[in-house]
């Protein structure tokens, strides 16, 4: 028992307990199952935040542990959303079409129903034909498989190409950013088959469950998101705690040495890159039904960079740091940009947070990078009185660019 996984990683247990308490408290305060102190829209916001926490864990694995600054994980997140969105939109449109056609004297044939659905969905982009990528849209199971498979396959192909040719560091970041840009530009086209910049909409309505009010559905999604986050956290903690985790940390710190020790660095990186893309896809598939709409703007490179911002502010190289960062920054962001924060009057100028929040965020990001590389999670170290030997900021290794002490103590 002493050597069990959870005992060796007490933070995992604490995190899971905190997550469970959070879920129970929100449920108890919700409109559907409790006192009604939390509005349905806020429950949705919290549920979405949990999904962002999950994708932040994926980002932390790939960046904080393996040192690959991927600027493409939000694209995988969006792809997962698109995959589930296709099923939601197809089934819901089908319900609408069938109910509108049931009044006709002659019952519709299957082909007529499909045509009518196609007309409904693709009318906005001036088409009525189903593109090939919608072939499985009528099957929930297949689309759920695609939620994992499509981001995973894209990550696998891209990662294979990139790691094989030893693209690393900043070059890889730029290349992933280019991939994200290409994907979002592609989806912006009307003939991409995913409704161009209209995106997919009406995703908050679950087909077949019209009877359930949104307040109940939002709690269901909160539970599902919490469950996914908990499982994702466990998986991530398991990955980084074993031998695999040691190797990827080794890759982060000095790729060449790990290679010379006989490890196939490319395979490790590729496996991690693909797994995290799948996790991101699942997070997206839970996020967008709560958001209700997905369009290509969500995939734009800036979103992936924000993901890196969350992880950095939360504290990279530890899983709970990533979740805290995603939750904290996205909630604070929506508080400031939603116009709820009070304006500050300086007499000669009034600071409107809607206008100034991004500047604060940007500068705080610089600040965190320069002075607090451990992010918010570093505060836990202070609380736990964990101190590290003070080497006055000197490099740990002999090479230029080797880790400095304050960031190397994971």
């Amino acid at each position, binding site marked *: 028992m002493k050597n069990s996984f959870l005992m060796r990683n007490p933070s995992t247990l604490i995190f899971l307990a905190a997550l469970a308490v959070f879920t129970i408290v929100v449920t108890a305060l919700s409109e559907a199952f409790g006192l009604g102190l939390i509005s349905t829209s806020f429950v949705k916001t919290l549920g979405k935040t949990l999904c962002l926490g999950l994708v932040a864990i994926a980002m932390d694995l790939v960046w904080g542990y393996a*040192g690959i*600054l991927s600027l493409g994980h939000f694209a995988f997140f969006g792809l997962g959303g698109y995959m589930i969105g296709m099923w939601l939109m197809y089934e819901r449109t089908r319900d609408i079409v069938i109910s509108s056609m049931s009044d*006709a*004297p*002659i*019952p*519709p*044939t*299957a*082909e*007529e129903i499909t045509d009518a659905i196609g007309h409904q969905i693709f009318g906005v982009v001036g088409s009525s034909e189903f593109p090939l990528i919608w072939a499985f849209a009528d099957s929930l199971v297949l689309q759920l498989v695609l939620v994992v498979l499509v981001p995973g396959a894209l990550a696998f192909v*891209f990662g294979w*190409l*990139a790691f*094989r*040719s*030893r*693209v690393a*560091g*900043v*070059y890889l*970041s*730029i*290349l992933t*950013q*280019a*991939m994200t*840009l*290409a*994907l979002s*530009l*592609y989806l*912006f*086209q009307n003939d991409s088959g995913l409704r161009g910049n209209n995106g997919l909409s009406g995703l908050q309505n679950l087909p077949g469950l019209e009877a359930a009010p949104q307040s109940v559905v939002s709690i269901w999604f909160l539970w599902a998101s919490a469950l996914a986050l908990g499982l994702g956290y466990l998986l991530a903690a398991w990955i980084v705690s074993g031998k695999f985790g040691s190797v990827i940390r080794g890759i982060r710190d000095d790729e060449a040495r790990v290679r010379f020790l006989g490890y196939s660095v490319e395979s490790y990186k590729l496996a991690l890159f693909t797994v995290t893309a799948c996790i991101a896809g699942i997070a997206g598939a839970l996020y967008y039904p709560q958001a209700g709409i997905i369009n290509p703007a969500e995939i734009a*490179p800036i979103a992936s*960079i924000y993901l*890196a*911002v969350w992880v*950095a502010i939360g504290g990279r190289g530890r899983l709970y740091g990533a979740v805290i960062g995603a939750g904290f920054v996205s909630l604070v962001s929506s508080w400031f940009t939603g116009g709820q924060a009070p304006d500050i009057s300086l007499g000669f100028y009034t600071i409107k947070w809607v*206008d*100034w929040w*991004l*500047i604060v*965020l*940007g*500068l*705080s*990001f*610089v600040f965190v*990078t*320069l002075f607090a*590389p451990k992010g918010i999670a570093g505060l836990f170290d202070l609380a736990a009185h964990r101190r590290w030997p003070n080497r006055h900021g000197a490099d740990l290794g002999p090479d*230029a*660019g080797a880790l400095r002490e304050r960031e190397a103590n994971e």
Partner: protein
Amino acid sequence: MQDILQEHSALITKSSRMTIAPAIAAITDSELTQAQDVLQAWQSKDIWRRTSDGLFFRAEETAAGSYLLFDFDTGETVGEAQKTDLKQLKPNSGVRALIGSALVQFQLQDGDPVRRLAALTSIQRDPSSELLEPLRASIDSEPDADLKAQKQRAERLLTIAYDTDESARVGAISDMSGDLGVDLRATLNPLLETKVQVFTGEAPNALNIARRLAPGEDISTKAAYDLLVTANLAPARIDQAEVRATLGVHISEGRVGGVAVEDLNQPEARARAYAALVAQGLAEPDPTSAEIEAHLGAHQFVEIYKEPSQPVTTAASEALDKILLKVGMNQALDLILDGLSLASIYFLAAIGLAITFGVMGVINMAHGEFIMMGAYTGYVVQQIIPNHTVSILVAIPLAFAVTFAAGVAMERLVIRWLYNRPLETLLATFGISIALQQLAKNIFGTQARPLTSPAWLDGAWVMNDVVSISYIRIAIFILALSFLAIFLFIMRRTRLGLETRAVTQNPRMAASMGINPNRVNMLTFGLGSGIAGVAGVAIGLFAKVTSELGNDYIVQSFMTVVVGGVGNIWGTLAGAAMIGFLQKGIEWFNPSNTLAAQTFMIIFIIIFIQFRPRGIIALKGRAAGD
């Protein structure tokens, strides 16, 4: 003149398009100098007839209801008359058009070249057959060489389109073939317009046949059959919607044609029910595919030129082929020029990065924002200095100074703590980038600000109707080249360049040789940022200046540097050329979809990196750094 008018007074007063021709002909054929005045007055409804003696005059209203009358022959006033004693000639629009074309021959020979040019322009804009003769008649007497050439060209085009003599038309076509003018293509294309006609049996040979169409090959069977249906040569097909409607009409007691209504969601059940209705004579039968085949086989589908003369269409299509080949070659040239100008824009945007990223290895995500700052500096300068030429000349050094200062500040405050840690630099500079973008939004608003180029940069250098390039793009090309020269000069010929190269290769060794690496890094970063600012002024001249201006260029700029090969200015040049030409090339395949072009270009670059991970021009040996 009055006599002529009197002679035709009946026609003139009761003018209609069908009958007026002899009257107009009489006036124009009179060869009197007044003819033009008469026609102009007539066209503008200024001719009045005196009721007492039936004489025609040009009249001008002097006071309400009172008119001053002018005689046509003498031009003198002949007195004043009340409106009640006069009757106005009101030619309708058809007649006015006829008068107008009769007037053209006078206008074409008018003493005033401006009027002649106006008449010629109206012919070019709105050609018609009756203008051909007057135009021909006016060519020989044309004194102005330029106008004469234009008239001859218009005459050739009118000959092609309207001459009654077939050989003259063919001759004109062969004269003009090889000409790139849009007007020639606009004249030739209508000659080759076709329509598809259906004939039972052989098509008559008298028609000018373009080609025979075989259903299923040259024309889809569906389209061919639809033609037959429109020509009432075959029964219409019944589509599913009609079947549905017909079935709906004949429901009785829950059954149609012996089939229960609830079973009608199966296609076979529907077919059975409909067949039963047909058997009862309640519905039209849908022709079977064999019947459709038979109908199609019994008819000939022929594409016929609307132009009846075969030699003309043959000559026109040959000439057009030749022209299109030439147009294609010119378009290729145009494409190359487009690619060149896009490449110089990318080069301009990337050259600052080539210094900060390529030489120093600092990844600066705020580079795009430096471009934006340069553009906004240009905008602010234009608000203060209204003269565009002067303001641009002031803006360029000022933009350099502003972004140089910003770059130095950024290097001192942020980047120098993060040397050798590129990922952190990327994130920190990204934070600066979003802060700067939002700051620009707060100061200048979200709407685009204009940065107007000086008047002498307006317009384009036009080679022919296909190839043209705007002066701004030429200026940017020259600017890009001069930046290249400045870069090379600084890096190879100045103390700063030498020190920069030393510091980037080995900072400790450089420091031990008495070079201050901090100072050198600061200045080099400032230089790269300053160049980005100047590029911003240039880019602002043709793009709208918004806070997101830099965003549009940042990924492409990094791509340019990475594809070209880091640390080598020639690589950046090659990268910019490759990306620019590639993007224009892909756009050429699908001009309406620039998004797709960008997508494919990025995918191409990702694949390209596979084969040359270090770029087109890779550094070798010690300079490569590892």
